[in-house]
């Protein structure tokens, strides 16, 4: 009996010591009246933890730069970070904490659309502006006028890969292997199919898996029989690496296509050589020689020791959009701040020029990157502009970009592109 209690007390003391350590790690310093408190939430410990880490780093870098330049309206920006653990329930809890307990003036996050969708209603109800750096599912900003984003949306991202498959890879048939537990993946599947069919292709089979599944050979075997020209896998890096490996083991050597959810340094470790002959759509390319991008890549790498992925770049941009809006709103009054964010126009970011449309979505071109596992690196392939861009001026732009990667998304180009495109893209959203 005594021994039992001894064991129990040991266990309890272990637990409580963890609790202390964790509190010490994340506890924000008490803020003074001179700072503007901004809430940031992301997954730093869950299945998509590299997303949250990149997001946090990108925002930290942006805040440091802004604060070093004197802050916003004379006040410094302060980041309060909460871990969503990659679960929608937890995302909802932490955003409530940020808003109700920490009294932040605005929230930046999440990455995964399912998590943003769970958290957004809380921000909307509390009338606290929330900018998601990288949730691409259209439904996220439909929650309300306090929710906005600085990235493009899935109808566009899905169509980019369909265009690339049909036009560049000359694919006639495609198979889709989607993640059934993510809104992101479902959205991409739908819009990829729509566009691919429109371009004369056929989606011959659609299979799904669940996050954290270990075995994908059953789905892949079924696909193998149908001999698709390409396989579209709109999932997150954790599963994609394994899927690629198991597909190659089954002798399937088709090009694998994906989206920004693949963008993580972890992908290379999981997939290795199997990731040859694969392409993704993404928000920006670190190869882009434009000086503002190279400066960002340089200072990010110096600070965190790794090259920034697109999620870090988007997070950095979302922080810049927020700072700019606070400046224009002349303060942090939530209604004025929301209006200022939603009126963001032509703001130069590392992922291109950012203008929010009537649905608070940013309209920007996407890049297609080729995977080169030998160097663990994404290599720039081509830029694809939003639809409605078939206007003569923009065709020229996209041609130039396709021919000379050096020119991708110079600011002048993308601004023109974005503005011209605002109206048609709005339609796609609905």
């Amino acid at each position, binding site marked *: 009996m005594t021994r039992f209690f001894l064991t129990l007390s040991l266990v309890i003391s272990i637990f409580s010591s963890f609790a202390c350590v964790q509190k010490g790690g994340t506890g924000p310093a008490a803020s003074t009246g001179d700072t503007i408190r901004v809430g940031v939430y992301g997954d730093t410990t869950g299945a998509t933890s590299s997303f949250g880490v990149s997001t946090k780093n990108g925002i930290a870098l942006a805040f440091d730069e802004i604060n070093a330049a004197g802050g916003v309206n004379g006040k410094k920006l302060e980041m309060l970070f909460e871990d969503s653990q990659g679960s929608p329930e937890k995302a909802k809890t932490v955003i409530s904490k940020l808003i109700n307990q920490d009294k932040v003036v605005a929230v930046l996050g999440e990455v995964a659309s399912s998590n943003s969708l769970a958290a957004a209603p809380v921000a909307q109800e509390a009338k606290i502006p929330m900018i998601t750096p990288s949730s691409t599912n259209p439904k996220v900003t439909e929650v309300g006028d306090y929710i906005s984003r600085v990235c493009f949306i899935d109808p566009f991202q899905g169509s980019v890969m369909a265009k690339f498959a049909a036009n560049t890879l000359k694919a006639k048939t495609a198979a889709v292997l989607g993640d059934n537990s993510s809104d992101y993946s479902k959205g991409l599947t739908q819009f990829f199919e729509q566009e691919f069919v429109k371009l004369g292709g056929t989606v011959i089979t659609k299979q799904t898996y669940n996050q954290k599944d270990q075995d994908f*050979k*059953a789905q892949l075997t079924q696909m193998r029989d149908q001999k698709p020209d390409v396989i579209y896998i709109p999932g997150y890096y954790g599963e994609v690496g394994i899927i690629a490996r198991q597909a190659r083991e089954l002798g399937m050597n088709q090009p694998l296509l994906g989206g920004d959810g693949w963008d993580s340094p972890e992908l290379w*470790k*999981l997939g290795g050589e199997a990731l040859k002959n694969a392409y993704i759509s993404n928000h920006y390319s670190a190869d882009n020689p434009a000086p503002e991008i190279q400066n960002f890549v340089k200072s990010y790498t110096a600070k965190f020791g790794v090259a920034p992925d697109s999620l870090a770049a988007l997070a950095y941009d979302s922080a810049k959009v927020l700072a700019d809006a606070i400046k224009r709103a002349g303060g942090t009054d939530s209604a004025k701040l929301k209006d200022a964010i939603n009126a963001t126009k032509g703001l130069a970011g590392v992922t291109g020029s950012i203008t929010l449309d009537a649905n608070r979505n940013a309209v920007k071109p996407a890049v297609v990157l080729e995977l080169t596992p030998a160097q663990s690196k994404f290599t720039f392939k081509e830029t694809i502009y939003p639809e409605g861009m078939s206007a003569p001026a923009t065709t020229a732009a996209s041609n130039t970009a396709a021919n000379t990667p050096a020119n991708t998304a110079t600011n002048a180009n993308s601004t023109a592109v974005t503005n011209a495109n605002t109206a048609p893209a709005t339609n796609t959203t609905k």
Partner: protein
Amino acid sequence: MDTFVQQLINGLTIGSIYALIALGYTMVYGILRLINFAHGDIYMVGAYAGFFIATSMGFAANPSAFGFVVTLVGAMAISAALGMAIERFAYRPVRKFSKMTTLITAIGMSLLIEYLFIFIFSPTPRSFPQLLPVENFTLFGNATISSSQLMIFVISLLLMGVLQFIIYKTKIGKAMRAVSFNITSAKLMGINTNFVIAFTFALGSALAAAGGVLTAQYNPKIDPLMGIMTGLKAFVAAVLGGIGNIPGAVLGGLLIGAAETLVVGYGGYIGIPSTYRDAIAFAILIVVLLVTPAGLLGSNVQEKV
């Protein structure tokens, strides 16, 4: 035809892993009437132990059969020790209380291991190094089997054979059977029941660890929560085969694995989307339990170890 064979190979591969883990559930249940919920996490610990052995001893850099065997045996030994420690410090002190107390302790133990691992090793999935070169063998037509799948079959069969030998041909095996038959009488006959129970935990944990290392060769992503779903399915497999019954656990594991894969492969034709693969495992369990409540091979007459 070759697709069907391919799906069967895929299914039996994961089924063998479930079977290895199910054996641990069933043996502990047979002896203590305890469902050891921490067993799925021992499978995870096995994979992590293998990971650290392989990376620290440099097997990751130069794959060899020797490195693989050392990793496998090392992981099994570490997990066996952990299984015994859990039994000694968590289950033995509460064994004399009600069954419910032990059950809750097991659930607590499971959560403790999971979150301890998240705390110490971070929740980020790790990539398990390839210890043996992967080759693909074509059986006929399109049906292929990879060396990692083949290895899972061979090693699982080997381990099950060893287990069968221990239980039926050795003295300790006889003691295990006696304890499972009636723990009080066994004690009166001079059997050191505490030792036998500890040994059972060690054996079950070693098998789970082997499952962990083998899975990691097939699917190199390991994370601290990988044991939850796999453990749950292995538990279902044990119950399906008749909990407490060793051949039943193997049969249950293979059945669940095959059913899961065939649902993904052919469910589409009868209107079951591939996402229902997990639901199917549990649906089968419910149906089997409705028809034969003791499981497929379970009965009250059979010896339980």
